[in-house]
């Protein structure tokens, strides 16, 4: 009756062998191709450093002004602009300016990247039904996987630093934009598509003139979610050497720096709110043609 109380697991020798082989081959892989992988990602590294330097080295009034300007252009809403300025000034006063710039730069670059890859993938998912099944399964796994697990293969392949952090963030944040692009295109009214066909649109014309513009509000919701997830992951990715506010939190946990942790936490919440409100306001502005007046 022993098997009944103690789970009959595979023999420890076998498990050990499996673990060893997989880990070993991964390690040989890294050793053999490590340099070429690194070389491959070198441009990305420079790009990330460039963005980060640009944001950290720029005089703070210019950054505040630029962000307020972006908020205005995108949202056309004074409340949003005021919120952006207020939050940034508060963060600066708390001494978190540099860390915040690093975090924002990584969030922005990874979100842009996720959008650039995610929207085409969403279109592919919408167009090819058999691919869609596979993609949906993969996305399900990606979205249920605990974020820490993403870090393991990335670290094994690329070590610690900006690039692996960036990749982990992009992978973690990309599912919503893919899914909502697909959904947005699917939600376009059948009669409107019929009209597009009836007037002789080619597939591309239909996509660019009808489906994408009408899917845009849904896609914006996806972008919003992607930004939020990128921000969450940037904090977690501090464990693999990403600098910024996340690292502050990590240090605070390790050393029990209560106040530093709380301040950084608030800074993260602050930029989360900024990003969220701005992208939502933009989404609403895209919808202006629906319902009442325009500006």
């Amino acid at each position: 009756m022993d098997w009944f109380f103690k789970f009959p697991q595979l023999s420890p020798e076998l498990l050990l062998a499996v673990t060893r082989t997989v880990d070993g081959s991964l390690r040989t892989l890294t050793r053999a191709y490590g340099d070429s992988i690194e070389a491959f990602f070198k441009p990305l590294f420079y790009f990330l450093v460039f963005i980060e330097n640009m944001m950290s080295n720029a005089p703070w009034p210019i950054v505040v002004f630029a962000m307020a300007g972006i908020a205005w252009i995108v949202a056309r809403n004074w409340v949003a602009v005021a919120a952006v300025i207020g939050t940034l000034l508060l963060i600066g006063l708390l001494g978190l300016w540099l860390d915040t710039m690093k975090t924002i730069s990584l969030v922005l670059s990874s979100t842009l990247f996720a959008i650039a890859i995610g929207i085409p993938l969403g279109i592919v998912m919408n167009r090819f039904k058999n691919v869609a099944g596979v993609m949906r399964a993969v996305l399900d796994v990606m979205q249920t996987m605990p974020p820490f697990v993403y870090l393991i293969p990335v670290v094994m392949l690329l070590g610690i630093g900006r690039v692996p952090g960036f990749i982990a963030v992009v992978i973690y944040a990309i599912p919503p934009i893919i899914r909502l692009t697909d959904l947005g295109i699917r939600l376009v009214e059948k009669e409107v598509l019929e009209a597009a066909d009836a007037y002789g649109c080619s597939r591309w014309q239909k996509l660019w003139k009808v489906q994408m513009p009408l899917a845009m509000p849904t896609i914006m919701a996806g972008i919003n979610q992607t930004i939020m997830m990128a921000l969450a992951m940037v904090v977690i990715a501090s464990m693999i050497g990403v600098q910024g506010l996340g690292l502050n939190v990590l240090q605070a946990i390790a050393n029990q720096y209560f106040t530093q942790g709380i301040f950084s936490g608030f800074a993260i919440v602050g930029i989360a709110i900024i990003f969220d409100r701005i992208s939502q306001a933009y989404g609403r502005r895209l919808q202006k043609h629906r319902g009442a007046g325009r500006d």
Partner: protein
Amino acid sequence: MTKSDASIEIRDLYKIFGNAPKHYVEAVRNGLSKADLANKHGHILGLNNINIVIPAGKIQVIMGLSGSGKSTLIRHINRLIEPTAGSIVIDGRDILGMSELELREFRRNRTAMVFQNFALLPHRTVIDNVTFGLEVRGFDKARSRETGMRWIDRVGLLGFENRYPDELSGGMKQRVGLARALSSDASILMMDEAYSALDPLIRTDMQTMLLDLQMELKKTIVFITHDLDEALRLGDRIVILRDGTIVQQGDGQDILLRPADDYIQRFVKDVNRGRFIKVEAVMDEAPRADSTSLPRLKVSTTLEVAAKELTNSPYDEAIVVDVVGKPMGLVSLRQITAALSATGETDRKKVELTLK
């Protein structure tokens, strides 16, 4: 503005919805009913042995209750739906043989469609909606705009060109839909219950506008409706569908005076007959050339008008004359009132009597 040269010939058309539609065509040809096909084989019979010849430059109305296959039929004309069997020849060209590219060209240049729920692009302004067909064809922007503005003016929407569809009322939206269809200058205009979503007054306006436009444009128009009044007002010819089958085909007089069965009878019952039946249909073909003192009515006079004229005159009979004024027959007030009140059975008998 091209005059239409596009005649549409639909022959032996069948459409079956389901997984293996071709498999059941033969059975349907041999009389398998829609209900049996649905219950025993899980396929839906959309269209059953449709034969229609639509002459160029005429308005063909397709009528029938909900689910009778009207939308399915009209979508075959530009192949938005592929038939299961049959042939569709437009202006001598077999459209079922067209490649994807040829079909696209055909849709761009020869057909335009107006939809029941407008199907406007909500993210585009009125003018950008109207020029959509031209834009798809890659026309010069400035010239498209000019064409678009001309049609916007023609349908009475000048001043609204920079509004978005959601800022317009239903009637205005459908004007945009019509302007979009007209600005593409296609010879075939397809209107799938284009006016069904509009309220009665606006609907009458839009009908008048369509008739006015048709006088100068002479397009081949396929117009779908489930409203007999609308069908009689607009249609040069009318086809009545039921469960995907044609139950009657003819002009308005045919349908009103000789409804083929009870299904059509149900449509005919509620129609204001006086407004559509012509004196020609009820007169006695015995021209009394001597009675010159009697009032004269043209053959195309409706019963409504004829009754009014006779009541206002001292006579209770009138001579029916053709377009050049030659006497054709005699009609009495009694005959007119009988035809006005008659429905169905009695009417058919009466018409047979008059024909003898």
